Structures are given as structure tokens and as C-alpha cells.
């Protein structure tokens, strides 16, 4: 699989942060010079951070049973650091929740489990497979993507654990429908988003009231851009899954995108979990030097050819990018309103 890109980034792993250094680094007020104080001013990343911490704490203060959606992707990695900043030295007062399609990158699952364990958090995993078995999700005939089937699986988990709030890492700059999203986004008892009847959101006063059966999706990274996320990862020295960095990988061409070839199916006693995600006869397969810019599962993540193997390189690449992040997502290419339709039904 090539080199482990995250090797350069492991500053944080192996030695979990002290939850609360009582004798820490000098105050950020004195960062330029210890004798002259800089002005009382936050730079834009510090501003986005304090805004997000405030939102996290509002969730803890207002909801009885919140959960945090953690996939192991770059945005939710930032969410975890913000949760540490909001709640330490206490435990993070909510479990992590992840919905697996069954087509995940193995590297992502490994990262997710490791990070949750490091933080001492409870990780709840529910699968599309299980939702299908329980009759919650119904794949369309011939449908190979599990993307839409995550919706009933997620709503099933919210009902099962009676979550009244789910924190997610969605950003407004990702997509046009998301650009209309509130920080606190109300969902009715069917889990639906009604973009025409959103609660006005004024100043930093978030209306967190829900009736039983309804819930709230909360997006602390709403105002962050892709660049902000990577700069925050650099600033906080956050570990990210190796697939974000350049590596050599077998890919196949489908719908104009290079999709990753899944790991081989070895356990013959059970059906191939990646069945729909394998190249079909006639689809071109090639060994390429690639990385992911955004992660869904293997069947909907286009790999980009890139030599970027450090956070610095990625930041330079994002700065020079001429295509949006979601340009590499097969799930968004379905139609102009693909995201809006999924969001209305209860998608992340």
C-alpha cells in the first residue's frame, strides 16, 4: 500500500495529551514577545475555534442525550479536538456514533477505533447491513452504493439510543444546499430537514428546544472552509488517516473517476462485503499514486492523483486547487439537488 503518510504526523499519537496541563505554554496573549503584550485579538482560526467550542458547550448545556458523529475523516477529527478543548478535564460528555456502509476504507476504521480509544470515549457503530436486515433500509434493485441507505441506519441509531442531538462535521462551503444550513438544524420526528422553515439563527443565541422524538443536528464547523480545516490540523498537529497522503494504490475508472480497488475477499464463508465496490469486467484498472481529498466510502470516493505527502503539501494543493472538494464525490454527482434531497430525508 505504499508508505504510511501519517508517519510525519504522529506527533500526537502514542502519547495522549495531558488532559489539563496546569503549567502549560505561555499564554497566547504573549506569543509574539513575552514582555510586550499583543493586542486582544483573535486571528481567524482562533475565532473559528472559540465559535465552535461555544457551540459544543451549548450542546452539552442544552441537550440530555447528545451524540457526536465521528467517521475518522478530517472534519470530524477537528470536532474531536474541539470537544477536548470544550470539555477537558472532564470526559467528553457524549458518545461517538458512526454509521458504516460496509464499504469503508480499512485505514479509516482502524483510525476511528484508535482515536476513540485514545480519548476514552464510547464509540457506537451501526451498519447499513444491519439496517437492511432489520427492515429499516431497502436497497433499490441493482443499487450498489450504500450512501443513501446510511439515512435510515442513522435515524435508526438516533431512535435506538433516543439521541436528541447529533453533532456533525458538515461545512457550509462544501455544497450549495449545505450553504443554507444552520448551526442548530432542526429535524422533525421523521428526521427530515425542511429548508423552507428553518429557525432563524441570530447572534450566538441558539434555539435548542425539541419535543420528544424530534432532534437537532449541530454543525460547529459551519463557517470553516476546507483550507481552515487543514490549517487547524497543522496548527493542532492532529493525526489524520494515512489515505489523505499520497500513496500507491490500485484504482479503477468508473464514471470518470478513479475509485479504489477494495482489499481482496479472503473469508469465503461469508459474502464479500465489498461486492458492489469491485471493478467490473471492462473497467480500466491501474496502479496510481493517489490520495483522497474527501472521504466517503470506497464506492463513492474518487482518488486524486497527487504527490502531497504532508499537511504542508496538502495545504499548498488546496490553495492551488481548481476543483471543489466535493468534485471528487460520486454521491454528489447524481444531480444538482443530490445533497438537498438526501438532507431533506435525514442525511448527515
Amino acid at each position, binding site marked *: 500500500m505504499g508508505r504510511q503518510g501519517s508517519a510525519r504526523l504522529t506527533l500526537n499519537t502514542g502519547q495522549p495529551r495531558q488532559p489539563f496541563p496546569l503549567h502549560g505554554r505561555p499564554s497566547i496573549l504573549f506569543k509574539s514577545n513575552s514582555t510586550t503584550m499583543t493586542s*486582544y485579538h483573535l486571528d481567524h482560526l482562533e475565532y473559528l475555534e472559540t465559535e465552535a467550542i461555544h457551540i459544543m458547550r451549548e450542546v452539552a448545556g442544552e441537550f440530555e442525550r447528545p451524540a457526536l458523529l465521528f467517521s475518522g475523516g478530517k472534519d470530524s477529527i477537528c470536532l474531536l479536538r474541539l470537544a477536548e478543548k470544550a470539555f477537558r478535564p472532564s470526559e467528553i460528555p457524549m458518545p461517538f456514533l458512526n454509521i458504516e456502509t460496509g464499504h469503508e476504507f480499512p485505514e479509516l476504521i482502524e483510525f476511528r477505533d484508535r482515536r476513540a480509544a485514545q480519548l476514552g470515549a464510547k464509540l457506537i457503530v451501526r451498519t447499513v447491513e444491519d439496517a437492511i436486515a432489520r427492515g429499516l433500509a431497502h436497497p433499490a434493485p441493482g443499487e450498489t452504493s450504500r450512501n443513501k441507505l446510511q439515512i435510515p441506519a442513522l435515524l435508526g441509531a438516533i431512535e435506538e439510543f433516543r439521541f436528541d442531538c447529533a453533532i456533525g462535521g458538515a461545512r457550509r462551503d462544501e455544497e*450549495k444546499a449545505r450553504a443554507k444550513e444552520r448551526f442548530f438544524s432542526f429535524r422533525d420526528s421523521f428526521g427530515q430537514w425542511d429548508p423552507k422553515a428553518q429557525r432563524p439563527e441570530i447572534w450566538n443565541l441558539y434555539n435548542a428546544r425539541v419535543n420528544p422524538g424530534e432532534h437537532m443536528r449541530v454543525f460547529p464547523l459551519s463557517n470553516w472552509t476546507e483550507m481552515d480545516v487543514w490549517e487547524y490540523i497543522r496548527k493542532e498537529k492532529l493525526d489524520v488517516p494515512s489515505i489523505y497522503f499520497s500513496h500507491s494504490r490500485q484504482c479503477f475508472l468508473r464514471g470518470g473517476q478513479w475509485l479504489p480497488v477494495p482489499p481482496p475477499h479472503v473469508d469465503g464463508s461469508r459474502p464479500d462485503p465489498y461486492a458492489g465496490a469491485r471493478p467490473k469486467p471492462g473497467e480500466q484498472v491501474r496502479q496510481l499514486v493517489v490520495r483522497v481529498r474527501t472521504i466517503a466510502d470506497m464506492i463513492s470516493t474518487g482518488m486524486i492523483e497527487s504527490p502531497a505527502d504532508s499537511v504542508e503539501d496538502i495545504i499548498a494543493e488546496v490553495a492551488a486547487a*481548481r476543483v471543489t472538494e466535493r468534485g471528487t464525490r460520486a454521491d454528489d454527482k447524481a444531480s444538482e439537488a443530490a445533497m438537498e434531497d438526501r438532507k431533506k430525508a435525514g442525511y448527515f
Partner: protein
Amino acid sequence: MPTPHPIELLRFNTCGSVDDGKSTLIGRLLYDSKSLMEDQVEALEKAADLSGGGTVNLANLTDGLRAEREQGITIDVAYRYFATPRRKFIVADTPGHVQYTRNMVTGASTANLSIVLVDARQGVIEQTRRHAYIAALLGIPHLVIAINKMDLVEWKAERFLEIRDEIENFLPKLGGFRDVKFIPISALIGDNVVDASTHTPWYEGPTLLSHLETVHIASDWNGTAFRFPVQWVNRPNNPTNAKLHDFRGLSGQIAGGIVRKGQEVLVLPVGIKSRIRDIHTHDSALQEAFCPQSVTLCLEDDVDVSRGDMIVGLEDLPGLESSVNARVCWMNLKPLQTGKKYLLKHSTQTVQAVVTQIENRINFQTLEPELNPASLAVNDIGTIRLKTSKPLVYDAYAVNRLTGSFILIEPGTHATVGAGMLLPPVERARHDYGDFSI
């Protein structure tokens, strides 16, 4: 490696009536400042071939919902992000129809600058006065009047000056703006948006983008009186670690002023004095912290403090009252009436509130208040008096946006129905009544 973007962040919103070209203007800003990506341009061109008769519709960039594209209007506030080498921008595109006040207040409440669009053919309409009024009411320091569709009035300087004079005539009634800029533009063609127009030799001011990049923005945060609404009590209750077991922190975002280690503070509304023992963040312990940082404070004394309480400095004490006066923007189809009960969320506290009086309602034709109206309808703005079930610890909105604002929530539906800006308090908290120990 070059710095990928500047540090300074400007938040602005665009407002105007239906068809004034707000979405087109934002599309133009993004397009001409090269902030669009190839796939976005491609999608625009694809849509142009299908439905636009070959013309790229810049409004499609922000009109993200299917119903918006169908009707060619903007339904809800949309946020956009772009950066130039000089600044980073967060743009709220606030639609100007039906729920215009609700949208304007939502989009503008966190803005440093408002752009009000005026259609050069139509000139000043009620909506123009309303938007300018709300911008002033919200305390937005910078106003830009973009006189759009100048191409449709043959780029006549007289028309521009006529509209400018009319607006300058009513601006003194609003007050409060630090600066007001008038710019003649054509969002459709692009004149004076990013690139200077060749059609307006009579105009010597900056283009819109150049103004956005250079206008001096000062901090909107209150830097004088320390205010700390407690959001969350941080108690690890860790039995295996003695230090953590006894840790009792108060987490929150500083809503005003500066706090220093050792400083004497007052806990409100109970009125108990204590001192700041430590200021924590996850990164380090601080000697001092300022608005709007998020921190965790530890007090010297074991005081009973919970979410909804406010910790303040001993100077410049806040109001402490359960009967308050406020300007309110009404955002619900069911009117606001005296005697009605609502939930009122102020800083980190939610209390019950009843409307005891509606003092006035603004007439947007004259911009004058009308006294003692029977109710406030959707989109109305007026001054009301409220009685709350618990006292509010607050400042005038004009002094501190964070401790001077509230929202009203309808019980049952939990709809956010009103946005309130508190007027100066009559009774203030006093620190002498806290001179007893517990």
C-alpha cells in the same frame, strides 16, 4: 510557500428587494475574484445550456435549493466563503421577500458590514429604508449602498446622485453608522464590482471589492466590562485522581472585557463575591483572557454556580432586573400581543417572559415610531416591555451585543419568533449586597 490567505476576516451580508440582483452580485464577486472552482463554473455552464438560453446565470451559484432555482428567487439565507490576497470573507446572502425581516436579521446579526442593493430604475423603496434601518438597529458599523443595474439607466450620474441624496436625507434618522459608501454598479455585467467601470468616469470611488478589502474594521467585541455567562459546569468527578476529583471549573465564552488571575469578581444573580483562582484552556493555563475567548474559570471559593449564572467584574456592573425594555424584530405569522407568554433565551439562560406593553411600532414609510399599537405583525419592529420569571443579568445592546440580545421562543412549537435588543437598564446589580460569606 506563500501565505494562502490573509488573517483578517470580514463578515458581510447583502440585502435588497426581490430582483435587485443580490445573488447575481455575489456570483459576480466570486466569479471575477476567481474564487470559483472549475466544476462550479462547469455546472453553471451546463445549466445555462439547458435552461438559460446559453447565458450563465450567476445567481445559480448561491441559490442552492431546487425550489429556488425553479422560482428564480432566494428562499433562505445562504452563506458563501471566499478569500482574496488581502482578506477572508464570510458572505450572508439575505433574501428580500416574504420573511425579509427574519432573513435580514439572521444574515446581518453577525455582520461587520451590510450591502443594501438599490435598483437604479426603481430608486429608494420601502425595503431600502427597512434594510438600512435594521442594519443600524443591529449596530452594524459599515453600510454600502450599491446602486445596481446602472447599465439600465444609461450610466447616468444624475440618477446615481438623485438616489444618493434621497438616502442621505433619511440616514440621520437611523444614526449609528461609522461610514456609508455609495457605489454605482452593474452586477450583471460586472462594472465596479471587482473591476472598475469604463462607463462611470464621473465616479471616483473604489470598486465594491476594493472597498470590502480595505474598509477599516474594528473589533465588535466589548473590551471594557468583564462578562462571563456560565455555559457548563466542568466537574470531572474522577475518583482515581485527587486533583481532578476536586476540580470544579466554570466553562464559557467571555462575552465582554478581560479577566485576570486573582481578580475579584461577582457571581450574579446571587451576588456573591469571589476571586479568579485559575484561567484554564485545554492548551494552557492563562494569566488573563479576553472576549470572545472560550475558557474555564476556577474560583477561590466553593460558590454555588450553574449554567445561566453570570460572573462579572466589579466595575461597570450590569443591569439586574426582571422587567426590561427592548426593541424587537418580530418574525412569526402569529402576531406579538400583550399578555402572551414566551420563552426568552438570553446568554446561557432561558426564562419565561410575558409581554406587558407594546410601546411603539416603526412605520417604514416615515421611519417614525407609531405609539401604542395593538400588536406587532410579522416583519414589524417595535419597542416592548417584558416581565421575566427570573431577573436578567444584562447590558444595553448598544454597549454589548452578547449580553444585550435575546430571542423569544414560542412554547410548544419551539419556533424562534422574535429577536430582541435590550435598552439600557434602570436598576443595576450592586456588589455591596454580596458582602456576606457563605
